[in-house]
């Protein structure tokens, strides 16, 4: 199976690889995995006082499509509010990267990672009381 150019581009030059401090109250960490292939994805967001995602980082161990999907969504969510980020659907990711049917689950993983990071951020804020 040949990878699409956009997948290759994100795979070879992944955007926003790295980590944010997971103990920072402004940082939400999402961890998701795909047991069928053993892929694991960490996506972190930092949210500013206006409730806008001003930074996003990811680390993915998995196939090219999983890396490309997470790289792409970190680009997409930067500058968005949490609610806007939550509207991103895996189908948009799959379409943008022209993922074949067997790789659709990689885009699902990326969508789940966003949700998981936002949920983590929100539960931190709720506990922190701010």
């Amino acid at each position, binding site marked *: 199976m040949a990878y699409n150019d956009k997948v290759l581009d994100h795979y070879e030059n992944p955007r926003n690889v790295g980590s944010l401090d997971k103990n920072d109250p402004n940082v939400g960490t999402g*961890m998701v*995995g795909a047991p*069928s292939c053993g892929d*694991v994805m960490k996506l972190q967001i930092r949210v500013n006082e206006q409730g806008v995602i001003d930074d996003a980082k990811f680390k993915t161990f998995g196939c090219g499509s999983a890396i490309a999907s997470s790289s792409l969504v970190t680009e997409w969510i930067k500058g968005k509010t949490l609610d806007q980020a939550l509207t991103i659907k895996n189908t948009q990711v799959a379409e943008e990267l022209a993922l074949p049917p067997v790789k659709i689950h990689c885009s*699902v*993983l990326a969508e789940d990672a966003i949700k*998981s990071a936002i949920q983590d951020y929100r539960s931190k804020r709720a506990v922190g009381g701010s």
Partner: protein
Amino acid sequence: MSAARACWSCKGPAGDAAFCVVCGVLQPPDSGADLFAVLGLPRGFDLDRPVLEESYRQAQQRFHPDRFATRSAGERRYSLEWITRINTAFQTLGNPLTRARHLLELLGHAAPEHRNTTPVDPAFLMEVMELREALAEVDPAADDAPRRLERLRREVEQRVDLETGLIRDSLARAMAGEGTTVLEEAVRHLDRLRYHQRFLEEVDRLEERLF
């Protein structure tokens, strides 16, 4: 599997056996059959490699197309179908992960293979992530690379043993008739096992490049 199955050749009652009890002609394999039965093994998670290999060898001999070379076209075709089933059984039962999945299927639980995302256990995924990071940090050119790879392999192999033991327990309890929560447990440990096996495959790949 229906006991009332009629022999395709003599139309007599073929029973459950591979060969018609009346005319002795080879019957088609039951495609839905339990792969343990294909190799004449009892259902269960515990299976010693030598026992598996011996039953595989015997089954291959029994159904080998050479033995049916002078028989009817139907029997020749069925012997090929049997050989395919026997190979599938050997492959599936030879790996603890796929063996456990097959047992789960037989126990009426949907195969976890087709579920793609986990109901998240972030703490476990974090451990996997940390292990993968440690693996990524191994510099293949460094002198200590083989030692570090071995240490990571041993660590993950211990986790494999732990999960395998838990899968064995939950499957044994499920087979003893304890309900679906036990099966859910087995599925969870199977998922974890998959991550560890994937990790070990990565270690294998790295070591191949090293030596």
